[in-house]
């Protein structure tokens, strides 16, 4: 296994993929934002500069009108009505001046009130007859576009007196004055606003700002304290101001004619909003991707990596020979199947190993018992005594027969090399064994029936002999009558049967049942020949094999070996 888990690798890959993209995006975004901001600054500055120039031009043009009137002979003549004694002349000059003023006032889109005042006669000729067109009192000094506050309407006014420098001493013969109401400026600002995007207004420290008609006053009020910071020597510029969560570019341009600043602001963060929204969206999506990736990696880690690691751990345990390990906490999906297969594999291996081991034990056990019975001193003594008496009786044939049987029996039992023998050989052994006992006791006979096809069937060694031995030891011992042992071997389907029956003492069901239970119990401490046989059959041939006990039709017990001949069962 490598040093990093899949989880770590996946996360690292995600980071490696995402980080360059994020970096690139951030850089490109910053560049485009900067370019756009610069462009907005340029455009806005150009806009307000143009508009400021228009306003300046307007005020300078009005100033020109002032000079024209100032220079006009007719206008001056009216200052000296005594020189014009003809009523008609006076009317005509009056009319001419009035028309001239109206004509001048009518030029252009933005209207100023133009008036000529003759302090000596108290007569005033003006372009507007509206109420409050002009203030009631005029400043004594000559002014150049001075700002005045008025309850009706704030205005800018300039005055020029004739003769020159006569205003201070109050001796002016004639004063030309121009008044420009802020309403016209507000209209101009509104018009500018309609063509542009901002919210322009005119600002002068210490005076009420002049707004356009659809102004956002609250917004501008927030800016006003900051606008005081404008350096009065600055002609134009811009500053960045924060208001709420919005960032504004506030541009200003000084009007040469008025000395006021034309101010306009751009909610730069609103303009940038789509970009920053895109940016946020990109980051959010990246974050989501990262999260999704991490989550997927985590899911993979949990669903694949962890079960896999457990599987490997258990494999290692199996390798070390601990077959009892099983997978617990089974996950869903494919791993469950794998776990189950692992568990069944482990249990099968365990069982197989156990079976083989137990079979070896039992078979050794059987061999041991058989050897014990061989060296059973009674058995040996009896047979030897029998042979001696037969020889004494000169029953040579019987002695020879016994000797032969004994010899074949021992040859067979001592041939321990093979665990499996043919049924025929096993039955031969039984035959010799029974022959020997027959001769010794001479109180029973026996009969062996074998279906021919079963003769060559391989069976475990010494599997039938214990049954026969059991009959000899238990059935005929306390029995006085002549007995009979019948051994039958037959096949039904795949099942092979070897039955050992006797005519011994009848046996009731309760006893059979207790023996059957004894045989089938897995308690290792209970030892018996029948149980040994049963266990060996089961180990060799599987669950449906074993020993059957029943009452024989011969009157005694019938012990039947059954096992399946199917190869796969073993």
């Amino acid at each position, binding site marked *: 296994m490598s040093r990093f888990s899949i989880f770590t690798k996946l996360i690292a890959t995600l980071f490696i993929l995402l980080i360059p993209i994020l970096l690139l995006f951030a850089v490109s975004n910053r560049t485009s934002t900067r370019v756009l901001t610069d462009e907005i600054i340029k455009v806005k500055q150009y806009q307000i500069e143009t508009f400021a120039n228009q306003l300046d031009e307007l005020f300078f043009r009005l100033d020109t009108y002032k000079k024209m009137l100032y220079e006009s002979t007719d206008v001056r003549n009216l200052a000296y009505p005594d020189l014009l004694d003809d009523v*008609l002349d006076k009317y005509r000059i009056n009319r001419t001046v009035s028309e001239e003023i109206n004509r001048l*006032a009518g030029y252009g889109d933005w209207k100023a009130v133009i008036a000529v005042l003759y302090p000596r006669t108290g007569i005033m*000729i003006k372009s507007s*007859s509206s109420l409050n067109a002009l203030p009631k009192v005029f400043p004594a000094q000559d002014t150049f576009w001075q700002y005045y506050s008025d309850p009706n309407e704030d205005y800018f006014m300039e005055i020029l007196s004739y003769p020159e420098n006569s205003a201070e001493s109050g001796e002016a013969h004639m004063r030309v004055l121009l008044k420009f109401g802020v*309403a016209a400026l507000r209209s101009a600002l509104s018009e500018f606003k309609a063509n542009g995007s901002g919210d322009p207004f005119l600002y002068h420290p210490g005076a009420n700002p002049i707004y356009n008609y659809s102004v956002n006053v609250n917004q501008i009020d927030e800016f006003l304290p900051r606008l005081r910071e404008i350096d009065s020597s600055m002609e134009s510029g811009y500053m960045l101001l924060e208001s709420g969560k919005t960032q504004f570019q506030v541009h200003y341009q000084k009007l040469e004619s008025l000395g006021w600043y034309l101010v306009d602001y751009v909610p730069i963060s609103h303009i940038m909003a789509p970009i920053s*929204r895109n940016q946020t969206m990109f980051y959010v999506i990246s974050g989501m991707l990262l999260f999704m990736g991490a989550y997927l990696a985590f899911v993979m880690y949990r669903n694949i990596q962890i079960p896999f690691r457990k599987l490997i751990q258990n494999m290692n345990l199996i390798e070390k020979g601990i077959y009892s390990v099983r997978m617990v906490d089974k996950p869903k999906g494919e791993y469950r199947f794998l776990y189950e297969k692992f568990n069944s594999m482990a249990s099968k291996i365990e069982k197989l190993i156990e079976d083989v081991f137990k079979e070896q034990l039992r078979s050794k056990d059987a061999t041991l018992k058989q050897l014990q019975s061989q060296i059973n001193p009674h058995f040996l003594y009896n047979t030897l005594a029998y042979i001696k008496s037969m020889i004494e009786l000169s029953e040579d044939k019987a002695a020879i027969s016994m000797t032969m049987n004994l010899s074949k029996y021992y040859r067979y039992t001592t041939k321990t090399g093979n665990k499996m023998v043919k049924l025929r050989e096993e039955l031969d052994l039984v035959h010799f064994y029974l022959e020997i006992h027959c001769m010794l006791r001479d109180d029973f006979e026996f009969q062996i029936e074998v279906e021919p096809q079963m003769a060559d069937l391989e069976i475990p060694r010494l599997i039938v002999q214990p049954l026969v031995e059991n009959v000899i030891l238990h059935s005929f011992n306390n029995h006085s009558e002549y007995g009979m042992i019948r051994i039958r071997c037959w096949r039904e389907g795949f099942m092979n049967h070897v039955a050992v029956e006797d005519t011994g003492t009848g046996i009731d069901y309760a006893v059979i049942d207790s023996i059957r239970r004894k045989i089938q119990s897995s308690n290792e401490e209970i030892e018996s020949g029948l149980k040994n046989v049963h266990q060996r059959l089961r180990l060799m041939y599987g669950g449906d094999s074993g020993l059957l006990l029943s009452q024989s039709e011969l009157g005694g017990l019938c012990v039947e070996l059954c096992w399946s001949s199917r190869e796969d069962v073993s």
Partner: protein
Amino acid sequence: MKPAVIGMVAILFISLMFILYSKYSGPDLPNSTEHHNADAADEQVEDVPESYVTLKVIMPGDLSARMGDFVENELNDRLKKDLNMKLELTYIPWSNYQQKLELALSTGEDYDLFWYGAPFVSVYYTKGYIQPLDELLDQYGQDLIKHIPDENFKQNRIDEKLWAIPSQAFTSAGKFSSVMVRQDLLEKVNLSEIKTIADLELFFKRMQAIDPSYYGYLETDRGHEMLWRELTDRNYSSLDERMLFMVDEDSGEMLSYVESDVYKKVAQLRESWVNMGIIDKNLVGNPAAKIDQENAGKLLFRVGAVSRAMENLQTARNADPNARLREYYLAKEKPKFITTPSNEAFMITAASENPERAMMFMNWILKNKDNYNFIIYGVEGKDYELENGKIKQLTNDQLIYEWMWRNKDYFLAPASVEDDIIDDMLMNDENSRISKLFGFHFNEASVKNEMAQVMAVYKEKIEPINFGLASYEEYYEDAIAALKKAGFDIVFAELKKQFSEFQLQH
């Protein structure tokens, strides 16, 4: 495990969709807050035109501060909702309205709609400044037809076509032939009413004795008809405000006013008024200064215009809170004549790009009381209040001039105006007759050169006599000779020809 994964993916997907959605719908939010103050125009929604246009309208006078505000913030919101248009008003000061208006019209600037007096309809028709309105009226002007009497439309029909909307539909008989006086001052000098010219002179004399700063009479250009009622037994009506020709309402004859006997009487009377000081010779050539006197509350009387007592009351009260105004007809028993039932005419320029909208806009004004009050008085509670069915304005700033669209169906009397003045106005048309001039338009096209010369001479030579500055005895011979030299007779002959043709037709 599985529901959790599905849940996560679903949450991520939904949030992604939300982000994308908000990106496209976010910035448009302000739109929804735009139309909040149109409250009574539900029924108009169905015929809102699709394209959004700007209607350019020329108005006389000065834009008041409130009007600028009102148009920008309230009126245009409403018009956007109702007609999908906005209004752009260009104000031309009264003092040079005609000059600047005609300059704009002749250069074909892209204005759509403008106002002027009814006599100018035929002038502008002749010059080709305006376009016929019959089809537009049929299609978009049903409320105009409903609220303006058929007769009023007739006066603006030339060559079987309609050329202007007679926006005012109110009493109009004898317009400009009455005299409006400061009733409070009249009573102060123990006079109760004005019946004769002598009453006016007495009023002036008595006031001068109390306070010499008061001055008498304002108009020097108009005011002839006012005097005719007493100075002659005949019933004359002036062809137009240029005071060159008049018609004899009894005989139906077109006459040359400047050559008539009554002209001489008027000129001599004016001369005597100059000498008495009723007309201030220093102010004659300076029209703005004369209005200043009125604004200052120093004017005793001027020409009336049926409803001027009501219209000018506020101005007078600004100067003198006790001011009251009243209009009187000299020789009260003589009949009044309706020459122009509506002197106010709205015309759509020939160069207009949106004539339909101009008509829709005018129709919108008279569509219902809400619209009418809104455009004239503004926002209820903010600009005006209603008191017992009378209007009380909360601001002095004018919006759309009330007199332009004054309508008998929607008229609201100002709360400050006494009932007798309102009654005077509402009953003005009693004892009235339709003038012989009704519906007649003098087409000057064939004599326009002569007319231009005549007007130049008239201004130079006749006007000083009109004003009483130049003595009739001394200057008349020379003036009338110059006038005739300029082609007065040719113009007069053409006028008589056209008028007799008109009379034959009607």
